[in-house]
C-alpha cells in the first residue's frame, strides 16, 4: 500500500508496476497489479492459463494498452528505457517459412541501434556471431530458419535478444516444447546473464522447475497472488490461491514441496 506522496519511480527497481489494469470490453484480464522486481534476479511469472501472464508481458512492452497504471524500468518509462529492455516472444508468433537465415534474424536485434537509415555492417555481424556462439548455434549461422528444430528456433530468438545488450530481458514461455539439451542451454545462458547483474523475467509454464532455476517469483491469477523471493513465495498456500482446485490433482512433491 503506497501513500500518494511515496516516491513512485523507484529507480533501484528493475521493474516497477503500479495499479496495472488491462481489460477488454468491461472484463479485466489483469486488475490492479502492483509488481516490483529488483535488479539482478531471475524471476518467474507463473499462473494458470488465462491468468494474464502474457498480457502483463505485452503491457510492459507497449504491445497492449493498459486501462490504468504505470510501468517503470529502472525508474524510466518505456520510451526512454527501450534500449535496456530485451524481448523474446513465443515462437508461434512468426512464420518460420520466411526466407531468411539465422544470422539475419539475430541481426534484427541490433536494428534499434542502427536507426532508420543505417545498414548492418561488419561490427553488427560480429556481434550476431558472438551471440550465436553463446547459444551454441554458430554452425547454423547461414541456415534457413525453416530448417531449424523447435529448440534451435528458440535459441535464435534468444540470441536476437542477447545482441540488444539489454539490462532487463522478458521471455515468453521459452521452454515450451523444447528438448532437454536446449532447455539446459537456455537456463545456462539466462543464469549467466543473471550472474552478470542483468535481470531476467520469464513467463514460465512448468511449476516443477521453479525452485530449481529461479530466485524470484510472481504468481498471477488476474491479480497478483503473491510475489517475492522464491524461497518464501513458493508455498503451498500461495499455490492453492493461484491454481485453486487444480492443485488437488497434482502431487505437491512434483512441485518441489515437501509432504
Amino acid at each position, binding site marked *: 500500500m503506497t501513500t500518494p506522496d511515496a516516491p513512485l519511480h523507484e529507480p533501484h527497481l528493475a521493474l516497477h508496476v503500479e495499479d496495472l489494469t488491462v481489460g477488454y470490453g468491461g472484463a479485466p484480464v489483469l486488475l490492479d497489479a502492483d509488481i516490483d522486481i529488483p535488479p539482478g534476479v531471475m524471476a518467474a511469472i507463473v499462473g494458470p492459463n488465462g491468468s494474464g501472464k502474457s498480457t502483463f508481458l505485452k503491457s510492459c512492452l507497449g504491445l497492449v494498452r493498459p486501462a490504468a497504471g504505470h510501468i517503470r524500468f529502472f525508474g524510466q518509462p518505456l520510451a526512454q528505457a527501450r534500449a535496456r529492455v530485451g524481448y523474446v*516472444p513465443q515462437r508461434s508468433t512468426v512464420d518460420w517459412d*520466411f526466407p531468411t537465415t539465422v544470422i539475419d*534474424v539475430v541481426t534484427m536485434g541490433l536494428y534499434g541501434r542502427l536507426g532508420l537509415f543505417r545498414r548492418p555492417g561488419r561490427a553488427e555481424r560480429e556481434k550476431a556471431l558472438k551471440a550465436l556462439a553463446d547459444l551454441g548455434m554458430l554452425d547454423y549461422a547461414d541456415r534457413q530458419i525453416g530448417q531449424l528444430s523447435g529448440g534451435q528456433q528458440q535459441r535464435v530468438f534468444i540470441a536476437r535478444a542477447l545482441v540488444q545488450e539489454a539490462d532487463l530481458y522478458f521471455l515468453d514461455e521459452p521452454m515450451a516444447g523444447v528438448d532437454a539439451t536446449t532447455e539446459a542451454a537456455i537456463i545456462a545462458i539466462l543464469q549467466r546473464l543473471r550472474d552478470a547483474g542483468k535481470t531476467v523475467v520469464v513467463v514460465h509454464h512448468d511449476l516443477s522447475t521453479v525452485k530449481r532455476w529461479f530466485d524470484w517469483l510472481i504468481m498471477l491469477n488476474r491479480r497478483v497472488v503473491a510475489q517475492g523471493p522464491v524461497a518464501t513465495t513458493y508455498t503451498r498456500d500461495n499455490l492453492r490461491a493461484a491454481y485453486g482446485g487444480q492443485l488437488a490433482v497434482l502431487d505437491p512433491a512434483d512441485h518441489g514441496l515437501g509432504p
Partner: protein
Amino acid sequence: MSPLLTVALGTALLGALAGALGPFAVLRKQSLMGDVLSHAALPGICIGFLVAQERSLPALLAGALIAGLIAAGLIQLILRFTRIKPDAAMGIILSTFFALGVVLLSHIQHSGGAAQAGLSSFLFGQAAAMLASDVTLLSALAALVLLILATFWKDLKLVAFDRDYARALGRPVAAMESLLAAVTAIAIVAGLQVVGVVLMVALLIAPAVAARQWVEGLLPMVLLSALLGAGAGVSGALLSSTARGLATGPVIVLVAAGLVLLSILFAPRRGLVWRRA
C-alpha cells in the same frame, strides 16, 4: 520508340513492380487485399477519366489510388465497429466498389465519345494501348518504389517477419506498414492497364510464389520475383499481340501461373517432384 518496344518496356516495368512488391503481400498473408485494391480501383479510374475528360494515365492512376485508399479505410471501419469478419468485409467492399465502377463505366459509355473506348480495357488489360508517355511515368514510379525499398529495407523486412518484435524494439511499425501499403497500391494500380482489375491479383502473387521456391533470403526473392514478373508481363504482352482482339491480362496470368506450377514442381530442394522420389 516503336510501339512494340513501348509495350515491351512498359509491361516489363509493370511486371517488375508487381513482382517486387508481391513477396511482401504474400509473406504477410495479405494477398487478397491486393484483389480488393484492384477491384476497388475501377470506380477510381472512371472518376479520374471524368475529371480529366480524357485517358490521361496520371489522372486515372490518381483516381485508382484514392479509390483504393477509401476502400482500405472502409474495410478498417467495418472491422473496428462491427463483428463482421475480415473476409466478408473485403468481399463487401470488393463487390460494391466494382459495381460502382461498372455503373460509372456504363455512364461514360452511354455518353459516347471516342476517348472512353480505352477505359473498358482496364477490365482485362490491353497492353497495346500503352503510350510512350505511360512508359515514362512508369519508369518514374518504378524508380520511386525502388528508392523506398532500398532506403527502408531492413525495417520493411523486420515488419514483414516479426511485427510485434519490431514494435517492442521501438521501430516505426505503423509508418512502415503504411509505406508498404502505399507502394503496393502504386504497383497494383500501375499494372491495371495491362492486366486488368479482375486479374491483377495474380500478377502480384504468382511471381512471388514462384520465386520463393528457388531462393533463400528476402532480397533474392524480391529480385527474382521482379524478374519473373517482368518476364511474364513481356511474354504475355507480346503473345497477346499476335492474335487480334486478345486481351493481354489473361495471357500474362496464364504465363505467370505456368511459372508457379513449374517452380512448385521442379525447383531444387523444394520441388514436389524431388520430394516424392
